[in-house]
């Protein structure tokens, strides 16, 4: 089938200086113009060090009706790629051919004006997203119903709760009917029920044969929505293909084998917590570093961390996921929770994951923490995570009763489920009654 999106040799170069100094002043440019003959020679030499490629040599094609997830670390070029696809910024090299109308939801509520009413904002926002007035009119009732704000439709949106605001914004965008829909983590907002509704709406869009590009850090959502995934790394396409394969490879990237990660310099949490991570280790019960465990053995996780200034109620711990991105559990060391303000110091948190808990499989550990530094809203665990950094495997210990008798040709088969518990079963014999 012919592609609906065709991307060829796409590249976008930014100047590093432009990021640091957001705008030049006229004086600088005037002075620059006078010095231009001298600068030009120097400029060429600086060219390579002062610029960087946010996206480079990107090639891919997407067929109509495909739902494609775009994943990658922060700074991998996902946002730049979306900005290029939605024509917000121009490419430096290469090009994109779009065989359909594009609507991008890079942020909900773009262009909402707080002083205007819900009704007025629906029209304004719709027009900004590229809808004609008649189109908006014909979908107006649907939009209001979807957003569940009918009572407040003539109230200025500055009086809306943040939930109502987001619902209205998503509703407008969701009722655009483009051939290509680009969505960037919009679903991170709103309550669970509304998130579900949004995901459902995206599914509907896909079922109508429209093409959806979905950028997210939520691997679970990517797996549920997108059969195909594009993994960006350092501005280039690292892998494109089947989502399960791609997500699993992505989660296992940069994983240290051998059970120990030491950060030098120490890793700083992204959620503004004054916490430095020094090292993370996985070992057996006796403390010997290993990444291979049996279903019966306990797993020791050791995190060495340091807080450089006092934190209010810090919790350090990890999220364990399966190698294909399913969250298994979260374990947090809340020992200093009772202290309230924890003075600066270097600490080691250790915990033991009991044996006879995890099923066979590959697991990853994603270290994270939260706490409050005095600013409101700093209890932000999601941004305090390192991403999967350690991997370990759990194998069938080949002892009864856990042994799984795999058939020839089903070598990789295992018991279904994430957990494999040795539950204390009871068995009673029922006496047969003869009449």
């Amino acid at each position: 089938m012919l592609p609906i999106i065709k991307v060829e040799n796409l590249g976008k170069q930014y100047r590093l200086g432009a990021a640091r100094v957001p705008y030049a002043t006229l004086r600088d440019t005037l002075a620059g113009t006078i010095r231009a003959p001298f600068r030009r020679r120097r400029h060429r030499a600086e060219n390579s060090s002062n610029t960087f490629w946010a996206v480079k040599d990107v090639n891919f094609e997407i067929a109509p009706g495909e739902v494609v997830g775009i994943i990658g670390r922060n700074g991998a070029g996902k946002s730049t790629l979306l900005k290029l696809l939605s024509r917000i910024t121009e490419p430096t090299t290469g090009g994109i051919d779009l065989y359909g109308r594009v609507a991008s939801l890079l942020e909900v509520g773009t262009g909402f004006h707080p002083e205007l009413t819900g009704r007025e904002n629906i029209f304004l926002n719709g027009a900004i997203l590229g809808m004609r007035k008649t189109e908006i009119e014909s979908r107006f009732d649907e939009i209001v119903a979807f957003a569940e704000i009918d009572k407040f439709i003539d109230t200025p949106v500055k009086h809306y709760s943040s939930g109502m605001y987001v619902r209205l914004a998503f509703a407008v965008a969701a009722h655009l009917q483009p051939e290509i829909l680009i969505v960037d983590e919009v679903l991170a907002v709103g309550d669970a029920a509304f998130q579900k509704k949004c995901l459902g709406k995206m599914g509907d869009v896909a079922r109508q044969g429209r093409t959806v590009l979905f950028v997210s850090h939520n691997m679970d959502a990517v797996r549920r929505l997108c059969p195909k995934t594009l993994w960006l790394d350092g501005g280039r396409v690292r892998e494109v293909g089947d989502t399960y394969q791609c997500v699993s490879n992505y989660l296992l990237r940069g994983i240290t084998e051998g059970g120990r990660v030491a950060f030098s310099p120490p890793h700083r949490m992204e959620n503004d917590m004054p916490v430095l991570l020094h090292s993370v280790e996985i070992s057996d019960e006796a403390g010997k570093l290993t990444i291979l465990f049996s279903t019966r053995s306990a797993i020791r996780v050791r995190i060495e961390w340091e807080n450089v200034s006092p934190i209010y109620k810090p919790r350090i711990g990890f999220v364990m996921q399966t190698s294909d991105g399913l969250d298994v559990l979260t374990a947090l060391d809340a020992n200093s929770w009772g202290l309230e303000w924890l003075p600066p110091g270097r600490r080691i948190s250790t915990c033991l994951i009991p044996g006879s808990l995890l099923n066979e499989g590959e697991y990853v550990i994603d270290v994270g923490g939260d706490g409050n530094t005095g600013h409101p809203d700093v209890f932000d665990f999601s941004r305090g995570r390192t991403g999967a950094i350690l991997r370990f495997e759990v194998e069938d210990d080949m002892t009864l009763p856990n042994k799984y008798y795999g058939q020839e040709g089903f070598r990789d088969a295992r018991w279904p489920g994430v957990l494999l518990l040795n539950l204390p079963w009871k068995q009673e014999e029922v006496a047969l009654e003869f009449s």
Partner: protein
Amino acid sequence: MDVSKNNRMLGAAALRASTSTAETKVASQIHLTLPDKPLVSIRPSTSWSPLNLRDLWQYRDLLYFLVLRDVKVRYKQTALGVAWAVVQPLFTMLIFSFIFGRLAGIKSDGVPYPLFAYAGLLSWTFFANAVTSSGNSLVGSANLITKVYFPRLLVPVAAVIAGLVDFAIAFLLLAVLMLYYRVELTWQILMLPVLMSLTTLLAIGVGMWLSALNVKYRDIRHALPFLIQLWFFASPIIYPASIFEHWRWLLALNPMAGLIEGYRAALYGSPFDWPMVALSSGLTLTLLIYATFMFRRMEKSFADII
């Protein structure tokens, strides 16, 4: 056990197969006829590419809603509301009439000084407000520009057009003044729409150019009030162009000069200075075309540097 497992897997495979056929059926029901040529082809642009008229036409409703937004928001939460559109030129006119008309005794080409001053102030107030809000409009819409595509040109243009509402309201007061001073209308009043269009185009040209520069050089924000003030004194608002005598051509290099003199001629029936009006029109159109090209050239980097 092996057998049951086998069956389950087969079952799952069958289920998957059935849902996928269902999905393809749904997908094929909706006829997405793709065009042979790309609808949009995104390439690094060459710097002097022409206006994208097709795009502007497609987004024409957005212009309407942007204007509507500016108009509706302008006087929200103000006690006087729309009256502000009249207050500004009216009070300036009263003060000027006292200082320049009474105390300084500046000539006003035979028209009562308040009328003389108001005609100038009316068009000037529109022009100055339009250029100021247009010049700051792009920077003020930074969140839009970095998040969504639309023809950026619409932002400064909408800011100017929104000012036309105030312009029209201020005209009502002029009508009252003209009745009070018993001004007789002549056929020259027919030039009024032409002059208003030219003033609007001039404001669009200047506003568009300044707004684009403002994205890159925030100096514009500070320079704008100063520039507007200088331009005010370089325009025949408090004084008639006639006081320049044979240096008049120098004044005519300011396109607002010809337009303001034109408004007076159209409204009060004094003779038109056609060469001056023609020169102003020519300058206005040249400036507009230049601004369009400049804007087009700078537009592509807006999202990166705003």
